[in-house]
């Protein structure tokens, strides 16, 4: 199994006529994802990359039975597109874009929830259930099917991390990019709940960084009696205090945001936490070895 997406997911691409939308539609299809349509309000194309193009989400859903979308539009119009998708009955909305005003992120999240939809993003490469489907633009060769459920705040770091896990024979159920912004469509805690409930996910791998408080939600999960084993990589040990490191949330503003405070909290909660990407594979392997032998399957 996997969470959020699999072979049955029927995707549309909003903003499919742009360069990124076109590239991603082709790339998602090549991976085996079911892409049933595209939406473009302003362009007259009837078809792109062999995919029918509709003037709005409602028309796309009616014609194709789509239940998921990836939205490639600039930040200025992102909120409108997310709301349109959620109110048209789409149940999984992925918005990868960055530079989104936080007020719009707040409204987006609320609109998704009000319509019973799950929002992934902003500021994420998306999510992938290896061997089944991908919703976003992560490099496909970094992933393979397996038993690890992965949650990441950073796109580029998740490529490197999953490339290493996959190369070491540790495949994944679903890799969820929750994004690096403070207000997320799907929070770290919510992503963990999804992976916790997934029967195929045996171990959870969390990829985090300095700044923000998501790592404390991971620690709180790991402390639960029924928690699955957790491995974590926290980057940013070399970052100075008070300087913004790219991501809107990657800023050490208080002691709790620091690398050492987060590592201490995770280790105390029983997480196999490491501070360098080179130690991630052993940490994930150690988490797998926490499982009782009866539940361990080949990863």
């Amino acid at each position, binding site marked *: 199994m996997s969470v959020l997406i699999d072979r049955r997911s029927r995707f549309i691409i909003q903003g499919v006529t742009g360069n990124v939308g076109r590239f991603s539609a082709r790339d998602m299809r090549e991976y085996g994802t079911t892409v049933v349509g595209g939406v473009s309000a302003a362009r007259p194309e009837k078809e792109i990359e062999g995919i029918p193009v509709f003037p709005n989400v409602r028309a796309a859903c009616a014609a194709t039975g789509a239940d998921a979308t990836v939205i490639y539009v600039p930040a200025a119009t992102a909120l409108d597109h997310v709301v349109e998708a959620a109110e048209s009955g789409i149940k999984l909305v992925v918005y990868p874009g960055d530079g989104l*005003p936080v007020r719009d992120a*707040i409204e987006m999240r609320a609109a998704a929830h009000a319509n019973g939809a799950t929002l992934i993003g902003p500021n994420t490469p998306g999510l992938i259930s290896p061997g089944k489907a991908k919703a976003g633009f992560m*490099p496909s060769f970094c992933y393979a099917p397996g038993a690890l459920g992965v949650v990441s705040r*950073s796109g580029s*770091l998740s490529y490197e991390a999953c490339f290493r896990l996959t190369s070491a024979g540790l495949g994944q159920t679903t890799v969820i990019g929750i994004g690096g912004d403070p207000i997320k469509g799907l929070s770290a805690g919510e992503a963990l709940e999804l992976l916790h409930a997934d029967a195929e996910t045996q171990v959870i791998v969390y990829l985090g960084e300095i700044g923000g408080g998501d790592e404390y939600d991971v620690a709180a999960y790991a402390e639960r009696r029924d928690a699955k084993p957790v491995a974590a990589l926290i980057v940013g040990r070399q*970052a100075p205090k008070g300087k913004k*490191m790219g991501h*809107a949330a*990657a800023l050490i503003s208080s002691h709790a945001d620091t690398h050492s405070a987060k590592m201490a909290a995770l280790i105390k909660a029983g997480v196999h936490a490491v501070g360098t990407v080179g130690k991630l594979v052993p940490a994930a392997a150690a988490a797998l070895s926490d499982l009782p032998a009866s539940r361990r399957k080949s990863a």
Partner: protein
Amino acid sequence: MLLTEFEGKRLLREAGIKVPDGTLISSAEALARRKLAYPVAVKAQVASGSRGKAGGVVRAATSAAARRAARCILGMRFGGETPAAVLVEPWLAIQREVYLSVTVDPAAEGYVLLYSPHGGADIEGGQPPLRYEIGPAHRFRSYRLREILATVEHDVVLREKVVALGRRLLELASSRDCVTVEINPLALLQDGSLVAADAKVVRDEYAAFRAADIQTAVHATHKREPKPIARALAGDLMLVWLDGEVGLISGGAGMTMATMDLVGDAGGRPACFLDCSANPTPGGYRLAFDLLDHEPKVRVILVSIFGGLTQMDRVARVMREIMQERKSRKPVVFRLNGTNAGRVEEIFAGSGLHNHTALEDAVAEAVAIARKGART
């Protein structure tokens, strides 16, 4: 982006919140020309906290004392920043100080309102403020806030004023794209009125496309940065200088930080955080090399990019071109991986460039070069 107190108070005033009638003054001489009612408060205008404890707020009872205070403050530094002006305000006869703020908070899934019955300089040391988790702005309910305030605030008249003010702060935050609007202290005066004695307003830089005043402020802030940082920002690159010798050109914040950490593990020190992911174009990469080539402390440049949307065959071609035209002889170490990375080797073939397969190998080579440079 944190505004100065004067800029923050201007926003508060526009939102109908009472602030002292202050004057922005850029020199002691300019202050002498003003007719003011004394005593006054002379306050450093910097975008940095703990100004009060550092001597940035002075009470002056006479014109001469105010001039002395202004001259002194304008020569001081606060968190590395020299104030461009002082704000001169009538000294307030404060009966009581409370704390009120509205800020974006992940746990609240939106905005949270914070209130403490004891405001002032030591807010961080005392009891944590009360939290009213609002979420999206339209979910504000004054009766919910009233219930929460009632647990600590027994002055009913004050409580009602705080409820009304809280709503205004929230409306200001959401309508003007503020991440934080903090009033500390919120001063209760003898006549029962509430005045924002200070203002800490953080605006959302990402909203610059729809707010001309944010755009202007962002440009002004960028211009005040040292030249290389200003150039990087103008080119959509994110540059933070660090103390080491290994210059990094990277893509994505997480990957950049992971590479910085590996440089540290290998016994080296990163010279910078330089994230090119917002501008992965020939122009962006040329600018990145130009910045590091001109920085004396950078002894070696490590290019570490794992591209998703950024297609690495294109990046490799750009790198090959830059290496051919570049004048600097600083060594460059490459580790390119990601989408279309399989074509990098053939693009580098014959150019003398080498692309490392493993990040650790690239880091080890860069650190070894930096150390060799240190010995010579």
